């Protein structure tokens, strides 16, 4: 494995970490104050920083470091994660993502943006609140219970009378590490290994010995959490250490000692003033061992009667729980000591902690090359076809009726179906990453336009084929931009209309009858129908006297060359209209619809296939050939009557459908399968609606039925064939071609299919 590969893996991991970071921050933004969430966020930034350091990506490291420092303040409860703090952090996450991308693709990032953020982050880390108004309006659920940044933190009160005393810290000088006091700066460290540390073969003693090399060290072992013998898990981790060290190596050097144990222990490193450190080491440190209280044993025994396993679990979980927050840590300690009322509470805490750990452990994934998955899908497709062929021939040859062969075949059929489903599921992924990306876009545009927007996502765990997800991002981005820029009004207008000044954009994904439905709803002004109509008339898109329903007017915005924006803004109106959105959705085999209510907003509804590998098709016969017509293109099928067919000019024919005339296109003729046009009365007409607008009646000889077909590429071994979108393999093992309806309709307009065809067919 060469360096580039390793780097590639790092960037892949970065993507995951960035997603984790953003989702964590968003969760916190919604009021989640779970220490595990904060930890996850911190961890994400930390991992990126670590990896970036290894590859010498200095810009990334520098930014991640500042970000990490600020996050650490949140982690250690010095900084209240108010909405305004989180706003800065979300922006920082965006910049971090940009820096990562720049490092990967060799681009650059607007330096003023990152520099500004660095200042903001540093200010936050130094305890300067973003703005007073922000602090006032931000919810501060734990404000009273927690030391507030910038104020010297009072020592947390002992939580019980057990003799356990938390270590008091000074937060005064956190920002300037290493320069506290005169002479050698001192640090207070709480090192609390978890069970995992030992299980991975680490030895706390070695770490402590390493630490002692940094300078003069005072160390106390705290055995407060040592349970009674009957509860003792011989493999558990119960001791923790309070360390005071005087070193000029700096906080980073201390953290480096614990680098490899970082996630398997709770580690708090705080610089203290020397005098203070002196004092604490003499008087305040909880060096008083817990008196061995026999009552603990009794109670534990009693508790065991009631919920023996729960108590045991509790003890293990207290050791294992990943709770970096001191508050939680103390609470856990308190819970253990105050056994009387705490057996149940501890059990609850334990199960909560266990649930957390489970949540973190869930969703294990492996990374697989997409080619391998595709190959597997191909093979399974073959298996399905083979199995069908086998069944067919057995049925044809079997005269005895029931036989063990039939039973075996049935089982084979079931197994194949199951394998097919599971293989298809491998490619399926939740739409979450795309949705998450949208939240960033909403933030950015809201910032640019000075609007206040709240993005609500629902059903982000809905799964779709990866290729669909990848291709969804672009149209969705465009629609979100539109919704925020055009859809939602300015706060002033909203206030005037009696709405909440904060606009809401709701992005929803759900499964509906074998397709995925994605809805984008905004509570903005809705479509200004009069304006849209006027614009369409101005642009010659509709006749001035046309009588359109509201719905038809709404759908005008999907026409090419349509933009309701009065002026071209930075955000939208760059020549990419909703027609492009519609086209990309259609390219995915999907449909898009809009409903709008003036004053109440608009809803865009996209219906997409779950996978691009499979297509719903109408299997038809044309000139002895079997073709597949995508079902999404077909509006209706009809049996033409002789009276409905009208000749038009020398070569054209029209079919009258409910008093309108629609050009008739002979598929067999246009694909050059036959020399003359077939008699329409003997065939079936498929009324199709093409991308370029306009309906056509496609003539085919017969309809065989509807079927789901697996799409196969023609280009891989052959070449692009005009009029043919792709190929598929039918149950009899033969190849059938999938009709490119748009190209055929285009050809009927006079553009020759053959002209595009290169002379040599293969190559």
């Amino acid at each position: 494995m060469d360096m580039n590969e390793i780097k590639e893996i790092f960037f892949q991991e970065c993507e995951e970490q960035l997603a984790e970071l953003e989702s964590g921050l968003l969760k916190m933004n919604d009021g989640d104050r779970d220490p595990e969430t904060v930890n996850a966020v911190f961890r994400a930034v930390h991992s990126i920083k670590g990896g970036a350091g290894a590859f010498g990506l200095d810009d990334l490291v520098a930014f991640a470091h500042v970000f990490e420092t600020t996050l650490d303040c949140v982690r250690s409860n010095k900084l209240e994660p108010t909405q305004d703090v989180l706003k800065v952090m979300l922006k920082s996450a965006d910049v971090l993502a940009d820096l990562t991308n720049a490092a990967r693709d060799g681009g650059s990032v607007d330096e003023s943006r990152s520099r500004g953020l660095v200042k903001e982050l540093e200010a936050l880390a130094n305890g300067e609140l973003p703005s007073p108004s922000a602090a006032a309006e931000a919810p501060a659920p734990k404000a009273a219970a927690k030391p507030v940044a910038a104020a010297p933190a009072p020592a947390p009160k002992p939580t019980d009378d057990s003799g356990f005393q938390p270590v008091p810290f000074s937060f005064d000088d956190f920002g300037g590490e290493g320069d506290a006091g005169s002479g050698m700066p001192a640090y207070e460290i709480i090192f609390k290994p978890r069970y995992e540390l030992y299980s991975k073969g680490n030895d706390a003693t070695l770490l402590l010995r390493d630490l002692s090399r940094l300078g003069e060290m005072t160390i106390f072992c705290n055995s407060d959490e040592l349970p009674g013998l009957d509860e003792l898990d011989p493999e558990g981790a119960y001791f923790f250490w309070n360390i005071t060290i005087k070193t000029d190596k700096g906080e980073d050097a201390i953290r480096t000692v614990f680098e490899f144990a970082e996630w398997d222990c709770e580690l708090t490193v705080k610089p203290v003033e020397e005098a203070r450190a002196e004092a604490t080491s003499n008087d305040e440190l909880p060096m008083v061992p817990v008196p061995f209280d026999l009552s603990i044993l009794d109670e534990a025994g009693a508790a065991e009667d009631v919920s023996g396993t729960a108590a045991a679990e509790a003890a293990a979980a207290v050791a294992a729980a990943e709770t970096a927050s001191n508050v939680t840590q103390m609470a856990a300690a308190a819970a253990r000591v105050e056994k009387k009322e705490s057996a149940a509470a501890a059990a609850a805490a334990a199960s909560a902690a266990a649930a957390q750990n489970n949540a973190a452990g869930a969703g294990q994934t492996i990374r697989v090359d997409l080619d391998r998955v595709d190959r597997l899908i191909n093979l399974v497709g073959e298996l399905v076809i083979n199995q069908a062929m086998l069944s067919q021939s057995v049925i044809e040859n079997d005269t005895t009726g029931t036989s063990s062969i039939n039973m075996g075949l049935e089982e084979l059929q079931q197994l194949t179906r199951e394998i097919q489903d599971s293989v298809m599921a491998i490619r399926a992924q939740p739409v979450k990453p795309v949705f998450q990306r949208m939240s960033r876009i909403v933030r950015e545009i809201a910032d640019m336009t000075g609007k206040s927007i709240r993005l609500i996502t629902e059903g982000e765990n809905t799964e779709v084929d990866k290729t669909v997800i990848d291709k969804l991002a672009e149209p969705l981005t465009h629609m979100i931009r539109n919704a925020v820029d055009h859809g939602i009004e300015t706060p002033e207008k909203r206030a005037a209309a009696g709405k909440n000044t904060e606009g809401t954009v709701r992005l929803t994904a759900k499964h509906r009858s074998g397709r995925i439905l994605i809805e984008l709803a905004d509570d903005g002004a809705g479509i200004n129908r009069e304006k849209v109509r006027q614009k369409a008339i101005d642009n010659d898109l509709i006749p001035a006297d046309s009588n359109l329903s509201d719905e038809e007017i709404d759908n005008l915005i999907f026409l090419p060359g349509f933009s309701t924006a009065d002026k071209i803004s930075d955000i939208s109106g760059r020549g990419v209209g909703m027609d492009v959105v519609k086209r990309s959705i259609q390219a995915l085999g999907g449909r898009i619809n809009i409903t709008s209510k003036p004053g109440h907003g608009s809803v865009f509804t996209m219906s997409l296939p779950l996978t691009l590998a499979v297509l719903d098709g109408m299997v038809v016969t044309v000139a002895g050939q079997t073709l597949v017509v995508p079902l999404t293109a077909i509006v209706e099928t009809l049996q033409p009557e002789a009276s409905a067919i009208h000749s038009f000019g020398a070569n054209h024919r029209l079919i009258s459908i409910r008093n309108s005339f629609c050009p008739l296109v002979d598929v067999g003729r246009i694909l050059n399968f036959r020399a003359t046009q077939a008699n329409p009365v003997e065939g079936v007409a498929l009324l199709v609606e093409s991308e370029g607008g306009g309906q056509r009646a496609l003539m085919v000889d017969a309809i065989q039925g509807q079927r789901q077909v697996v799409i196969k590429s023609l280009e891989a071994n052959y070449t692009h064939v005009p009029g043919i979108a792709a190929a598929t393999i039918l149950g009899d093992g033969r190849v059938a071609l999938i009709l490119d309806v748009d190209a055929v309709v285009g050809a009927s307009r006079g553009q020759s299919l053959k002209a595009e065809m290169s002379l040599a067919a293969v190559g």
Partner: protein
Amino acid sequence: MSYAVKNLNEGDRELIAFRIGDQEFCVNIMSVREIRGWTPATTMPHSPGYMLGVINLRGAVLPIIDLAARLGMKPADPTARHVIIVAQVRRKVVGLLVDAVSDILTVTDETIQPTPEISTELERQFARGILAIDKRMICLIELESLFPETESEAA
């Protein structure tokens, strides 16, 4: 068909020989993926005469070329006895319809004689040389020349 495991010397190359009508041809064995029987192909619209259509090769769409027609000879009338040589040409896999596969030859570069000057443009385009083996004349075909580079890039 005679198989023999031989230690190839440098400069040796292995060729697969096949028959179209009464003529013998051969191609480099390294480009041959497999040999299979004829199955009916699905006709492609607007395709040239030598393009028989596409078949299903374990889930992949495989175009089939009537090599006789491609070489300017009488087009084949495919039957179950015909053989498809599945060959890799650059990044694409194609099937070549021939009458029968006859031999695997090991030859050195020296035994390959230049194409005689009487050849027409068409033959000169495909033939890379001629082998004389046991009074047989075998024409060496360069597969790449059947499908010019520019085409594959445009596709």
